[in-house]
């Protein structure tokens, strides 16, 4: 293939990679500055290389508290919203029922609402009821804006689902519940995992809604917002880089596992092929 043809063929890939680089550029900056050794309060000019802040990554008690809060919050948000969202997705995809369109609408509208409006509206309600702002109100808010995303992710997995596997299970005598837990759920797992991951990420990342509804609780993003006024400690960069790396490593592990599983299936399929007849499903 000539050079021009090669470029045309892969041009999109190159552009895609460039965009990806653009997306990761600030992360690189964050990582680089986590090794900086600033003289004063502010960490924006390169002074010198040091690993001190990596060693003392958890020395700052305030950062630790806010990080723990954020992770705790994100964990419960992910579980809660994925659970509720999966149920909704199952209902929407598998059943025809009265009010289906309204349900769809109710799921979609929160996504269509700017965060500042959601945060402010929740605050209005809490104020009017005289409810104290705290972890509970934060959790409520986070689950609320995450449900719709969970629904979308699980739903797209459900749509591509091969119902015949469930039918086969029923034909072989399994009760609906057994079928659900042994066939449906495991096959749905990638979708659920995706929803968990997405809602976790969105919760950890959230600033606007938390800003309105956290009361005295300080999540990691809220801490950064406050700290920005007086100089963000280098530990913040370290932790941000850490979180990113952990996520990437986790993903790589998942991919690696997937590839291994695929290879094992291939090998078994090869063995099967050497047998007589495969029963067409």
């Amino acid at each position, binding site marked *: 293939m000539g050079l021009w043809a090669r470029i045309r063929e892969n041009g999109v890939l190159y552009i895609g990679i460039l965009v990806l680089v653009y997306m990761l550029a600030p992360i690189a900056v964050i990582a680089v500055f986590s090794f900086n050794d600033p003289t004063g309060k502010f960490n*924006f000019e390169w002074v010198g290389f040091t690993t001190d802040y990596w060693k003392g990554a958890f020395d700052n008690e305030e950062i630790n508290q806010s990080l723990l809060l954020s992770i705790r919050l994100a964990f419960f948000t992910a579980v809660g919203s994925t659970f509720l969202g999966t149920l909704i997705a199952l209902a929407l995809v598998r059943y025809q029922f009265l009010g289906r369109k309204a349900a769809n609408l109710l799921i979609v509208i929160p996504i269509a609402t700017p965060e500042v409006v959601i945060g402010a509206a929740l605050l209005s309600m809490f104020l009017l009821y*005289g*409810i*104290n702002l705290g972890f509970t109100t934060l959790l409520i808010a986070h689950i609320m804006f995450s449900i719709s995303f969970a629904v979308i992710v699980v739903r797209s997995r459900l749509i591509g689902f091969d119902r015949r596997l469930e039918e086969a299970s029923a034909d072989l005598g399994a009760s609906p519940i057994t079928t659900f837990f042994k066939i449906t759920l495991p096959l749905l797992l990638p979708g659920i995992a995706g929803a968990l991951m997405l809602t976790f990420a969105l919760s950890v990342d959230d600033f606007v809604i938390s800003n309105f509804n956290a009361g*005295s609780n300080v999540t990691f993003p809220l801490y950064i917002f*406050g*700290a920005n*006024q007086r100089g963000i400690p280098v530990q913040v960069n370290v932790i941000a880089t850490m979180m990113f790396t952990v996520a990437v490593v986790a993903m790589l592990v998942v991919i690696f596992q997937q590839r291994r599983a695929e290879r094992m299936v291939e090998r078994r399929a090869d063995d099967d092929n050497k047998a007589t007849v495969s029963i067409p499903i």
Partner: protein
Amino acid sequence: MSERNKKNPGKLFLLSLAGLAASLAIAACGGGGISEGTDSSEAPTAAAGNASGTLNISNWPLYIDEETISDFEKESGIKVNYTEDVNSNTDFFGKVQPLLANGDSGGRSILTVTDWMSQKMWDLGYLQKLDPNALEPIFDNLIPSLQDPAFDPGRTYSIPWQSGMTGLVVRTDLAPDIKSINDLFDPAYKGKITMLDELRDTVPLVMKADGIDPVNASTQDWLDAIDKIKQAKNDGQIRRFTGNDYVQDLAKGDVVAAVGWSGDAVQAQADNENIEYIQPEQGCMIWSDNMSIPLGAPNSPAAYEFMNYVYEPANQAQIVEYVNYITPVSGVKEILAKQDPALAESELIFPSEEFLADCTNQVSPPGDEAAKREVENAWVAVTKG
């Protein structure tokens, strides 16, 4: 399949109405919350007594040295949770307002906010009265100029933590000629100026620069000064309206002069030694951050104990050495003169009468709620415009 869905708007409408009705039913069970007003006429007096247990304090960041808290804990036996969650008066107010409106302090026994916010919280009935009998050491040591401020005569609900000056913070290497607030409007510095986004910091300074005394200023004076700033903004003179984060721009050199606070200039020297506090020609604004005991404070005896502790000159000296703002306690200068003469001589920490000659105490816009709202809205239109 989508055909059927598209053609049933009626059903959708009815279902939405049902949903709305259900929501209204739930909402009807709602309570009063913010619909009732509040006021300070019946503020309870914070109880004194034997100090023990745990004390939760909310304060601004970088406002205390590293040893005072543990020294206090050892001496008093009280466990202290010191949280630096006051990053701005308005953000903090936004956080605690719903709690305080319910008589809940969120666990705090001391909170520290600036004069105007102390007054606002008091007017809304969120603070407790202080028992002067429990605070005798304080009234002995409080410097005369802070004993009877206009917003809290006799100090019934606020005790100064530290004081400071709002004036000019300048990169003297890049803008050596800036000496007055009006210099900030000089087109030579176009786009390299920042102003504080707090109404009560910036606008009175601009009024003073034009010869108006903020204490006697009318609503129209405030609006005129805001207009002047608006002009400058439209001309591109002002780069940003900042919170506490103006020092960063100065350190980078993106900005050559800012409206800022005296203590920040001292602390900023570490980032860039050319950052200096310049006292404006027409004088500065003086403010204090004040400790108050909020409604529902769980441990006011311990709060009193802490307040008394930091007003001991020896203990205060330790704080002042680190914080670099103006101390409200008399007798500290003499102590520091022995340990750190340079600090004791600093005009920024122990300003002379002369240095403060033209300075005004912090004020709020005058008039009734409507007039205040007018000024605040005019300001929002400029800073968020």
